[in-house]
């Protein structure tokens, strides 16, 4: 597998009143092309900071982020970030949101493409709705469709489904896997939800508490669709939770 994303000794700290707060400490890992890697870690461990660095929004203090072997300096539409709060523009309709990142060609062609992706994520009939008229799950679909429509090579997902209720969370995982089966994106997922990570990813990295470092790695070799209740999945879940310092008997 060709390497798509490579992090080399990434470090990041923030200045505070009490001096330097180390947030990300010497993180190195790589993600292969078309691979789905999930990063799990305790809350406040610096996961989001790490994601912002990988996606190009903030610069690391030292170390480097390579995408296709080239150092990433700033974000671009080859890798789209989807975050927990979402960034669907509330002042644009669903269709206008989907067309936001499309610049080329005619308006009609863009609109067709937007409607096609709206259809893929199950938003058919809502093209002219405004975000405040939609539910949380629908908003996530808009967000996902808006990312997919620009045909990115990488999806950076930072707690994408955390704000949803458990049922919708599960449903969105299914949708995501279904879409990924059709369009092979490289995905980097950050989550605090171990179950979500092993449900979706090919590989799971466990981060330590702040300052974040990669503490353990797990391959998930179970084919999709995965059953959360299967013994292998349960075993993996317990192992990762243990790594995170959560014993199930507690």
């Amino acid at each position, binding site marked *: 597998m060709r390497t798509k994303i490579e992090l080399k000794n990434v470090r990041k700290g923030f200045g505070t009143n009490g001096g330097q707060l180390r947030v990300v400490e010497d993180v190195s890992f790589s993600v292969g092309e078309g691979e789905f890697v999930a990063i799990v870690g305790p809350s406040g461990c610096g996961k989001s900071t790490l994601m912002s660095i990988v996606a190009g929004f903030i610069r690391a203090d030292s170390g480097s982020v390579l995408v296709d072997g080239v150092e990433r300096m700033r974000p671009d539409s080859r890798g789209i*970030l989807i975050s927990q709060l979402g960034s669907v523009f509330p002042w644009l309709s669903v269709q206008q949101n989907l067309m936001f990142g499309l610049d080329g060609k005619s308006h009609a062609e863009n609109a067709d493409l937007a409607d096609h992706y709206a259809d893929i994520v199950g938003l058919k009939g809502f093209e002219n709705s405004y975000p405040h008229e939609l539910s949380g799950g629908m908003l996530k679909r808009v967000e996902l469709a808006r990312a997919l429509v620009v045909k990115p090579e990488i999806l950076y997902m930072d707690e994408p489904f955390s704000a949803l209720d458990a049922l919708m969370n599960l449903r969105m995982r299914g949708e995501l896997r279904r879409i990924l089966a059709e369009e092979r994106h490289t995905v980097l997922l950050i989550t605090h939800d171990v179950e979500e990570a092993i449900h979706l990813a090919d590989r799971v990295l466990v981060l330590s508490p702040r300052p974040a470092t990669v503490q353990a790695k797990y391959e998930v070799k179970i084919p999709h669709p995965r059953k959360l209740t299967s013994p292998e999945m349960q075993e993996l879940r317990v192992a990762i939770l243990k790594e995170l310092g959560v014993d199930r008997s507690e």
Partner: protein
Amino acid sequence: MNRIARALPALLLLSLLIAAWWLVVAVGGSAIFPTPWQVVTGTVELIRDGSLWEHIGASLMRVGVGFLLAVIVAVPLGLWMGWIRGAYDTLNPIFQILRPISPIAWIPIAILWFGVGNASPIYLIFISSVFPMVVQTTSGVHTIEKRYLWAAENFGVSRYTLFTRVVIPAVLPQIIVGMRIGLGVAWLVVVAAEMIALRSGLGFLIIDSRNAGNRYDLVIAGMIIIGLIGLMLDGLMRLLEGLKTVRWRYAHQD
């Protein structure tokens, strides 16, 4: 039906106040203070001789011109100050000093610069409504959530698209709030300005009615008309809040 039911207590209170006013004047037997009925006949008199429409038209024209000039200046200026740090640091302290100066305090200078014609009140309206709109627009830009700017950056859109599709729509609700405040202040100020020097307008009507023979029925008629028109102007501004592209910001309209 529900709306009528909700308006009922307010209407009831209003009727009670008018009744109390009537009673007090009737019992007290004031020679100058009018009864509500005298205010009504006074208003009818003003309508009959056509002067009421002239005064209203004059006041609205001054507010319209001054307010539009203020919008034209304040919105681009506010966007610029909000976006460019240096512009904000340079201009904001000056605006913060000018802003608390009551427009009434500007009246002598307005007369000095613009004489006693229409230009003076227009200038005063401009001065009074431009600052709240600049401040609202600037703070609107400052409070755009980072996630939206990041998204725009992520999709790699042009500066033009960033402004027209993200920055301006994000700030629009705040601009409308600024316009509501600005127009409210403008309406307050035009009446005050007209009391000083002019030959027409609702402010002039009030002062002239008092000076020309203590016509307090017309004074109160003028006051009530000012209130009603102010309410109407605010209603017009609130219509803007119903626009689809800004409704996300006003939770009460859900």
